[in-house]
């Protein structure tokens, strides 16, 4: 049972653990607590009980702050870069496996090649969804955060595309998947990722509040 303002703040401090905004949150809530106490005419232990009922237990307050931190935009950016890096690495592994004639890789490649347009649409849809979610989560700032994340995340895609277009990679590596039409479509669609994701981000931002 919390008996004093100091004890409440100490408990909250423990619960916030490694929250990046811990000090600022504690300072802000300490001021709120001070105001509440200053306007109270009852004993501190009664007042803190009243405060806890209105404000919430330290564990509840810390949990509410758990999903909100100034580190969120950077974490979201990192996750997008990692997600694309994993997808890219899987694609690369598959290409190498086919080229090296590793067992099972050719069958997988053949299977996926039958759905190449579907894969392209699915991958594009993923970026549109990410755009929408960034808008919903980060509101007015979503566009800037998304643009930063996309520019970083798409570096491997652009490098690979440039290498394929300028003949730095043998076309035999992708011959089953990359006919000319598909290659041109990939280039055009990749060029549209940023504006299309930002458009979806705007739709998402409408749901932000």
């Amino acid at each position: 049972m919390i008996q004093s303002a100091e004890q409440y703040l100490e408990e909250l401090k423990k619960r916030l653990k490694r929250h990046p905004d811990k000090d600022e949150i504690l300072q802000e809530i300490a001021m709120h607590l001070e105001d509440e106490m200053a306007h109270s005419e009852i004993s501190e232990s009664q007042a803190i009980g009243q405060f806890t009922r209105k404000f919430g237990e330290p564990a509840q307050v810390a949990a509410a702050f758990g999903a909100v931190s100034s580190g969120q935009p950077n974490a979201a950016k990192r996750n997008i870069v990692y997600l694309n890096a994993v997808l890219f690495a899987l694609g690369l592994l598959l290409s190498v496996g086919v080229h090296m004639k590793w067992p099972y890789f050719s069958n997988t490649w053949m299977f996926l090649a039958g759905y190449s347009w579907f894969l392209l649409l699915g991958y594009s849809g993923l970026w549109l969804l990410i755009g929408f979610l960034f808008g919903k989560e980060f509101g007015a700032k979503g566009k800037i955060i998304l643009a930063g994340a996309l520019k970083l995340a798409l570096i491997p895609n652009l490098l690979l595309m440039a290498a394929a277009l300028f003949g730095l990679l043998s076309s035999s590596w992708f011959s089953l998947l990359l006919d000319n039409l598909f290659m041109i479509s990939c280039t055009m669609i990749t060029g549209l990722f940023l504006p299309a994701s930002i458009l979806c981000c705007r739709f998402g931002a409408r749901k932000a509040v």
Partner: protein
Amino acid sequence: MFDRELLKGSTSLLVLQLLQERPMYGYEIVQVLGDRSAHALNVKEGTLYPALHKLEIQGYVESFWQQQDKGKPRKYYKLTAEGESKLGEKTKEWTQFSNLINSMLGKTT
């Protein structure tokens, strides 16, 4: 008192509305909200701060610390241009929704 779920979705709208008038700190927001609604709208105070922080991350409000004549500095929140535009958008949406519900309820009573 109202159903908490009804209030939950409108807390951010009310906060943006109050901040349109002037920059305020958390305790002040709670007090003004309580006074103006004759204490019918009692926001769970512990959820107000995460909501304010979220609005700040989203760019709809900005915060700044201001030294008081007496005592420690306070953290104030103020509306940004994006917040102003979001407030207009959400107010319009809310008005349309409540008009619709009112007219539907009016028809059935």
